[in-house]
């Protein structure tokens, strides 16, 4: 066997396929990766420190900026944590609105994940554009509801900031029907492509025990075969009223992670359908919330939800003042990277890129 020297390659911080400023220090033997170390922090904005300096409500615009792809679920996770701290009840209609928004966000995120995975495979933006097209309509729904496409700032501890506007429900129903066609089309387009199969099957395999040990959650964990979904486990919000499955895959490779995203979109469509049909009338904001937020009890609370990328949770410590004493965010993007070494070593550079794509990172979430 010929002994050859390895070379060190910096994949990033400015690189087309790292989804932002993220650096991978790769050690290469030819094209094969023998060492990998992620270097992060290029987008660190000190959100946890900023949270300590605002009031409880002023944190919400900051949570929008954690994972800009799914700001609605970020809002929701924070609201869940603070509601747990304050012991606030949320009106039923607000819970339904939250479910609809969270599932729409999940669709956005999974669309982006699938589209950009294909971009990294080298498909020159076509699946990404089709995904963006569907996403655009969801963003329209968001804009209609909260006035902003991406930085929603919609959910508050104790409810949501405003009732659904007129025309939202029919528009959402129309979108939901249309979206089934979109996923169908994506599946015919992408599922069976031979080149995709050749590249994605058995690449970046993540065994279930490693995934649990590395605290990996969300679609990645379920693609490895563990049917762990916080929506089913915790029954937070009103998820126990809807009939949906927790789809899983078995192998935990890139192809399974892709398929997992597609399967979860089907489930989201089911949930949205039921939520749109069953949404009750009523208040959307708890009257006690504003008073409670001014004088929260001392203590701490840990609120978690199933965000599209995995478990997103906020650990809020209160010292009784109007500002949170400490807010710690559990970023799913960052912690899902924990098993990168196991997944990447021994593969080619081209595989590293698609493995990273299938993990579905958002740098703003990773660095906070």
């Amino acid at each position, binding site marked *: 066997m010929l002994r050859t020297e390895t*070379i060190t*390659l910096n*994949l990033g911080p400015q*690189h*087309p*396929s790292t989804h932002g400023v993220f650096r991978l220090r790769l050690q290469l033997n*030819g*094209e094969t990766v023998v060492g990998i170390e992620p270097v992060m922090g290029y987008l660190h904005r000190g959100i946890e420190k900023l949270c300590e300096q605002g009031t409880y409500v002023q944190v919400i615009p900051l949570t929008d900026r954690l994972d800009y792809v799914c700001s609605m679920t970020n809002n929701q996770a924070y609201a869940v944590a603070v509601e747990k701290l304050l012991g606030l009840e949320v009106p039923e209609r607000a819970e339904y609105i939250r479910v609809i928004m969270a599932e729409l966000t999940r669709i956005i995120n999974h669309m982006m994940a699938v589209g950009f995975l*294909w*971009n*990294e*495979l*080298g*498909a*020159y*933006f*076509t699946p990404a*554009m*089709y995904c963006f*097209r569907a996403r655009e309509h969801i963003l329209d729904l968001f804009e209609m509801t909260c006035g902003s496409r991406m930085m929603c700032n919609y959910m508050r501890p104790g409810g949501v900031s405003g009732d659904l506007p007129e025309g939202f429900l029919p528009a959402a129903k129309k979108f939901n029907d249309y979206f089934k066609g979109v996923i169908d089309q994506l*599946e015919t*387009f992408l*599922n*069976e*492509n031979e*080149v*995709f*199969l*050749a*590249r994605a*099957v058995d690449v970046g395999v993540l065994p279930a025990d490693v995934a649990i040990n590395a605290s990996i959650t969300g679609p990645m964990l379920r693609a490895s075969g563990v049917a762990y979904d916080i929506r089913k486990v915790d029954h937070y919000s009103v998820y126990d009223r809807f009939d949906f499955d927790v789809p899983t*895959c078995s*192998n935990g490779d890139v*192809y*399974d992670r892709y*398929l997992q995203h*597609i*399967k979860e979109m*089907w489930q989201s469509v089911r949930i949205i359908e039921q939520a749109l049909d069953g949404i009750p009338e009523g208040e959307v904001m708890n009257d006690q919330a504003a008073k409670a937020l001014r004088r929260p009890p001392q203590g701490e609370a840990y609120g978690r939800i199933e965000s599209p990328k995995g478990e997103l949770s906020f650990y809020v410590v209160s010292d009784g003042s109007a500002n949170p004493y400490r807010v710690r965010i559990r970023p799913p993007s960052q912690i899902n990277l924990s098993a990168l070494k196991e997944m990447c070593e021994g593969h*080619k*550079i*081209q*595989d*590293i*890129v698609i493995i990273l794509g299938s993990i579905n990172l958002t740098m703003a979430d990773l660095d906070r």
Partner: protein
Amino acid sequence: MDVLNLLFVNLREAITTWLAGFLPMWAAEAVVHFGVGLILVVIGLLAVMVLTLGERKVIGRAQDRYGPNRWGPWGILTPVADAIKMLTKEDIVPEGADYWVHLLAPMCAIIAAVLIYAVLPFGEGMWGTDLNIGILYIVAIASLGTIAILMAGWSSNNKYSLLGAFRVVAQLISYEIPMLLSIVAVVLLTGSMSMVEIVRQQSVPHLITMPMVFFVYLLAASAELYRTPFDMIEADSELVAGFFTEYSGMKFVMFFMSEYFNLFAMSAIITTLFLAGWRGPILPGYVWFFFKCGVVIFFYWWVRSMMPRIRIDHLLNLAWKFLVPLALVNLMVVGLVDKLIADGIVQDVVLLAANIVVAIVVIGLLAFASRKTRSKRLQRITARR
């Protein structure tokens, strides 16, 4: 009809005669040849402009976008704007680069690309020169491009460039073999290496008589052109821009242009070898030629709009374990048929039948080889919801 068909040939004759009126014959010939060379380069440049715009338009349309449409009606002036932008950019030579090699690499690339145009037959009598080893000349010149890319990758002092160059050498050298073997099959049948002679011999396009040879050639050609799914060299999602990561301004334009020069040249070669060149009913020859080229190029664009990139080891496996044996089998079949059956319609039919048999055998062998993985994959796809 003949007037239109031979319009440019007659024009050339007329100019030569007119020049010979006040110049010695050799000088008139030289001037005309020089003019023809200039026209060939202009054809190449026009092709670059049309292809860059067309590619972006077609892929844009496939992605539900307009494509470029801001500059001029339907965006037809976009290539001009591109050119102006590129030419006014700063020319950057990275620190630690090998200056001369870095400078010469794009020139080599574009020279290699332009030289191919000398032997392309655009129509009856419309060629730079009718070399009797035309196709061999093309293969030889096209390999020069590999050296240019290697020079660029090596001299840039950048790991991305270097890795890109590694891939190029592996890919281009591997795919030259099935490509050559396919060309040999055509040459065997035609009995000539001259591009013009190949066209003249094709009463039935070789696409119809030898689809398998065409298939191998098409795959190998797209690898030689580094089009998707074989665009390993640029590989923008992993290697930034491959071997021309460190190039900017004019030098980058040269690489870029050489790529599109090559694309057009390759589609012209495919047209010549397999689609019967300029031959076609009613319309003048050159119209048919450009139409056929357009179809081939459109096919490449279409593939680009949906295809992911193949992995480097799969790529080499495909070349050595699939295309080379297949090309050899094709060559054998063509040789046998050519030897055993006299030229004519019977030969064409037998050749087609033999090709179909080869195709069926190949599919059968593939199915046999991949029966285990395939059932596993199919299971996963069908159990998807």
